[in-house]
């Protein structure tokens, strides 16, 4: 087993990234005490590389590179199960949406989804609400 050393400095905790996530999501990240209830009930957890409670921990620590490179922020579909169950009333889905926004609008536009890459037959069968919601969540 390899040992990973994480260095945490007060500069990270007070970084512009942490401030931006807190402002855009209107959440206090340090309210989270890592009970893990969000991840336990998340219907998408099986498809995530990092779990919702880990997303909150990494956000508290300002580890933006790890967060913005994760697939988990794109796997979350804002079903709000975590939000309704959080004993500290942290809106995890709002935090994750703020991370998607930062990833897509970081100086220039980085689209997560290119509709042209979706196979034509898939596009033809999808109801409009699928296309519109995907574009609203996964494109800038």
């Amino acid at each position, binding site marked *: 087993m390899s040992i990973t050393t994480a260095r945490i400095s007060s500069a990270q905790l007070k970084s512009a990234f942490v401030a931006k996530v807190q402002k855009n*999501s209107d959440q206090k990240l340090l309210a989270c005490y890592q009970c893990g209830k969000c991840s336990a009930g998340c219907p998408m957890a099986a498809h995530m590389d990092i779990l919702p409670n880990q997303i909150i921990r990494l956000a508290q620590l300002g580890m933006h590179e790890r967060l913005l490179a994760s697939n988990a922020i794109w796997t979350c*579909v*804002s079903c*709000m*199960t975590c939000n*309704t169950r959080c004993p500290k009333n942290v809106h995890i889905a709002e935090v994750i949406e703020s991370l998607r926004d930062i990833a897509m609008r970081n100086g220039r536009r980085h689209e997560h989804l290119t509709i042209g890459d979706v196979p034509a037959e898939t596009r033809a*069968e999808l109801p409009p*609400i*699928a296309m519109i919601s995907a574009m609203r969540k996964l494109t800038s």
Partner: protein
Amino acid sequence: MKLIYYPGCTLKNHARNFDVSTVSSMAKLDVEVEELDRWNCCGTVHALGATNVMNRIAPVTNLVRVKQQQANEVMTTCAMCYNTLKRANIDVQKRAAALETINKFMYLDEVDYQGDVAVHHLLEYLRDRIGFDKLSARVKKPLKGLRVACYYGCLLVRPKEVAFDDVENPTVMEDLVTALGGTPVPFAQKTECCGAYHAVDNAEIVADRTNKIMSGATEQQADVAMVSCPLCAFNLDFKQPDARRLNPELQPMPVLYFTQLMALAFGCGEDDLRFDLHHIDPKPALAGRGLI
């Protein structure tokens, strides 16, 4: 009295069965529904940014159209439309500055929006305004013996501010099925997400979710699953073959809108049910219970 009805985009194409069964079953309940004039896209998903204004414009425009029709309430059946309209309404009621910006942007409309339109989902309207007793009295063909797995998905019950029933264990759909003479089955997955828009970019997730949800309905020996969201219906019905690739034992189960089961129980005909728009044909399951 006319009730203003917001159908939303998908009820006018993929989910026409949801639209026609809504209008015809409401007529049987003596409620005249009038489609909202000049409605536009609801926005489909609520943008979660705390300072967002832009994504509130589409839903608020619809609420302005309700005012322009001299009404103060609007009913919708699509869970996505309901959620987006309701949350935008709550948001602008709380954020006066955002509402002022939206009203200024919409200066061509003479009506300023004041947060004063009530947004109702039809299930809520049936329970609270019509009443399941009255509804039950209109049943011509009770859904006797039909075992129904009531699937709420996310958007009728979350977040708490928009939920018109218990967040973890809602029962309004089961109560409707009972009023129609059917048998609601216990259903552990009834509020678990179907994968939603991952139908566009990640078919594996939808296949996995559909398998888990429909397997749960199968375990309870349901004949059909009942939904209120055209995206849930797409994932659970049209994507069932993908779920079956993950789990070859998953038996086909039809997925119906709650308005279709209502229209069926009220004695509406094929034109009001549109079973031709389903991927898994509901007719064998319904015929098996002697309902068609």
